[in-house]
């Protein structure tokens, strides 16, 4: 265990918050409550702080612009439905013509004959990780454990509970191994801008975080 990291609570909580935010945006469609929350001052301050890193400025600007235009739309309901339709087409149907949020569907590309069924090997491995950390996927979230929202939430948990080396190994194996392909898919398929920006922000953030974790070791 790297005691220095574990005790550096504020810093790791900051990292954890970013992962949590990303996880929650991949977990479900934007609704009124989440929209309100994200456009309120605390979240805006958080996003502004995140955007102080030039790496993230563009994606956060895009996310903010969609959030604000949705909030200020004369028909917010309708604008949210359009975003929900984007979300649905990307993450809730099919695999081939969508940007399926499941790790197993990307990792199989290295081994074309491997199992491509949902709830496959990656799901099982994530289940094991979660159990080892005394965690489980919420029953309200009836998705395989290799869903990107679960993996991001697990990294958020790890940020305050594991040493750098463990975290880095996990992120490399379970996130970085497929995040690039996933982001490419979202970017090429997203009919709006929100999820393309979110995926890109995730990819950039994870890369930057990995650099930091590696450097701190």
């Amino acid at each position, binding site marked *: 265990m790297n005691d220095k990291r574990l005790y550096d609570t504020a810093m790791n909580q900051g990292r954890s918050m970013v992962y949590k935010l990303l996880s929650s945006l991949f977990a479900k469609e934007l609704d009124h409550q989440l929209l309100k929350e994200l456009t309120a001052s605390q979240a805006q301050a958080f996003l502004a702080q995140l955007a102080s890193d030039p790496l993230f400025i563009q994606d956060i600007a895009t996310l903010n612009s969609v959030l604000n235009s949705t909030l200020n739309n004369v028909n917010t309901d309708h604008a949210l439905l359009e975003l*929900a339709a984007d979300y649905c087409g990307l993450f809730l149907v*099919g695999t081939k013509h969508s940007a399926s949020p499941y790790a197993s569907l990307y990792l199989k590309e290295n081994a074309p004959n491997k199992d491509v069924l949902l709830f496959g090997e990656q799901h099982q491995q994530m289940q094991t990780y979660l159990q080892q950390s005394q*965690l489980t996927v919420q029953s309200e979230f009836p998705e395989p454990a290799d869903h990107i929202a679960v993996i991001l939430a697990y990294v958020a948990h790890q940020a305050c509970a594991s040493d750098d080396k463990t975290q880095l190994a996990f992120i490399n194996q379970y996130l970085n191994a497929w995040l690039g392909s996933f982001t490419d898919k979202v970017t090429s398929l997203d009919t709006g801008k929100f999820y393309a920006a979110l995926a890109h922000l995730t990819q950039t953030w994870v890369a930057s975080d990995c650099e930091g974790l590696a450097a701190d070791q």
Partner: protein
Amino acid sequence: MNRRDFLKSLMATSYIALGSASVLAPFNALAAAGAKTNNDWLTTGSHFGAFKMKRKNGVIDKVIPFDSDKYPTDMINGVKGLVYNPSRVRYPMVRLDFLIKGHKSNTSQRGDFRFVRVTWDKALTLFKDSLDEVQTKYGPSGLHAGQTGWRATGQLHSSTSHMQRAVGMHGNFVKKIGDYSTGAGQTILPYILGSTEVYAQGTSWPLILEESNTIILWSNDPYKNLQIGWNAETHESFAYLAELKEKVQQGKIRVISIDPVVTKTQRYLDCEQLYVNPQTDVALMLGIAHEMITKKLHDEKFIEGYSLGFERFQPYVLGESDGLAKTPEWASKITGVSPEIIRDLAKVMTKGRTQIMMGWCIQRQQHGEQPYWMAAVLATMIGQIGLPGGGISYGHHYSSIGVPSSGAAAPGAFPRNLDGDQKPIFNSHDFKGASSTIPVARWIDAILEPGKTIDANGAKVIYPDIKMMVFSGSNPWSHHQDRNKMKQAFQKLECVVTVDINWTATCRFSDIVLPACTTLERNDLDIYGSYANRGILTMQKMVEPLFDSLSDFEIFTRFAKIMGKEKEYTRGMSEFDWLKKLYDDCKADNVGKFDMPDFDTFWKDGYVHFGEGQPWTRHADFRNDPEINPLGTPSGLIEIFSRKIAKFNYDDCPGHPTWIEKTERSHGGPGSDKYPMWMQSCHPDKRLHSQMCESQQYRETYTVQGREPVYLNPSDAKQRGIKDGDIVRVFNGRGQLLAGAVVSNNFPRGIIRIHEGAWYGPVGKDGSKQGGNEMGALCSYGDPNTLTLDIGTSKLAQACSAYTCLVDFEKYQGKVPEVSSFNGPIDTQI
């Protein structure tokens, strides 16, 4: 700012609210131990047979055949893929434009457009609101909820029963008569032999194997089709086919497959084939009849004692009534079978004991009533109906027909109709002058031409003005003909609701899509062997319903709750209450005949065995005494001439079997100069209709470059520069599809085969991804009903005519599109 400070500064913003939205929760070891998943072998059944399954960490791991299944189908390898395939409907979904505009939505978008996830409550409320709107504005004729199909197995969760009981509690609706499989056969045969015959137990295989000298498989491929059954299939028939194979090899039984193609059964039995030009079987049969009459080979005594109207038929055969003798020479020109072979066949069929076994494909063509009727006449002329190993059958390729029945009472099912004293909320029976029941395959015509009157089975059917369709466990975008015509019709509908496990094309053309779970995600029970009734099988839940899917029972219980009729719907009983009731009722019915343990023992054991049955001969009682045991025909006899049908005065189905030319026919027939190839779209070898096409890895065992195979004759392929494995465009004036070439000598020149049930995957006309809902779209996977003709068989049955279909094909030169069938709705508009 360094990284450390940067990260700390994020925390300093005190933004923590999102923590509540975490997808993770503490793992409750105690609760998990309580809900400890059972990793024992559990027993379940399906159309593909019964099997045992084992879980690992809550996921289905192993699937093995049930102990007593000695001939399991290869399709068992696709079962796991049925559950975990990427085509699953994961949440209730509503088409975006429908969600916003309701019944005034842009219906031209239907097909491939934007959906959004909604809650079950929202989806079911929208469903009910739509029913309210249709019943209020149009009455029951505006709603068709009768277009049902091959639901998943299970006596409790049967999707048809649940949907129709629940929708029936809301209001009345248009229903179908007949089915796509046997529409012509089941309509004509009651006039001729007194029952549908297609869905009736047949002479037992042991008697056939003992007594038959000759078996004629007429357009019949049992070795392919017996893999699946209406209930959990026992596959016992395969033991008899193995015995038959032996007898064929020993020269004890002669089996002749009369078929344009070399069938799987022919290859298995290594039996003879008699090639006949497609759609000309009636002409062949008439040629045989002519030979029998002129050589006096027919059994005049049997004809006299057991049938009616031969004297009206004989002049037609001899040409006395129409000036055209149906000689073997005449038949030869149409059928491509030499006069000598026809003469020989007449001799062979009347010498010794001959069992004719008809398949179903032959009646899925224009005038499909005729070959069934004419075959019954031939069997009558042979004179062996009612003898073991003789006569005619229409179902020995289906669901354990011919396997001796145990004789036990089978378990009942969840009720499809309302209970006696129940009334729907909208109880109008005013169909506005239109028919409340229409022939199964005519619903698209009805949507397109409401108010039109057609002849059907002696009555006038007036098409209702259908505004809303509800489907459950049925995929008409697989089994109906002519996709472009369907697209036109669907644009006229205000609302389409589909309950299904996967994103079938029917779901994609719907407004509200409700996810049902698979049979492995709920508890049920089933008859083991539809006609054999070998026992009762548990269908034990293997895993909880995936994603937000629900069992059919749960879906429609929730729907009933929204209507305020939950208790009426369920009779206050839970899933397990119902299972116990169905089992206990069956136990009571079998008291004194078959011992059945209590429910808990049954559930623990997984199976109750009713034992073997006694061999039985179809129509033996009629043969023994036709007066005491008459057939269900108007005269009680076999009707070679039907006065009743003659009185209908139909030009396409006169009073006796008749050769009638088809609208399109290959091998020199009408239209063959433009599109020279006949396309047969028979039941698949590796699916049940469209079920299991979605099982990805299993599908990949037979696809060619990811496409459905198209089977081609080597010379036809060579002429078009096509090699085995190429992508082929198959086309006609009605549509176009891509399929993968399998070049095979089993298919003679002028004939191609694409199995029905291949999932429709439309892409733009030119192969571009855009435009899946456009007219003339290219099917990227190979659904043959992109090409088939949507007309009734005749004014009698008005059944489907998928086998009357001419096409041509070429090597595909364009940009090859990705297959779009299996990935849910694709946003093609932007």
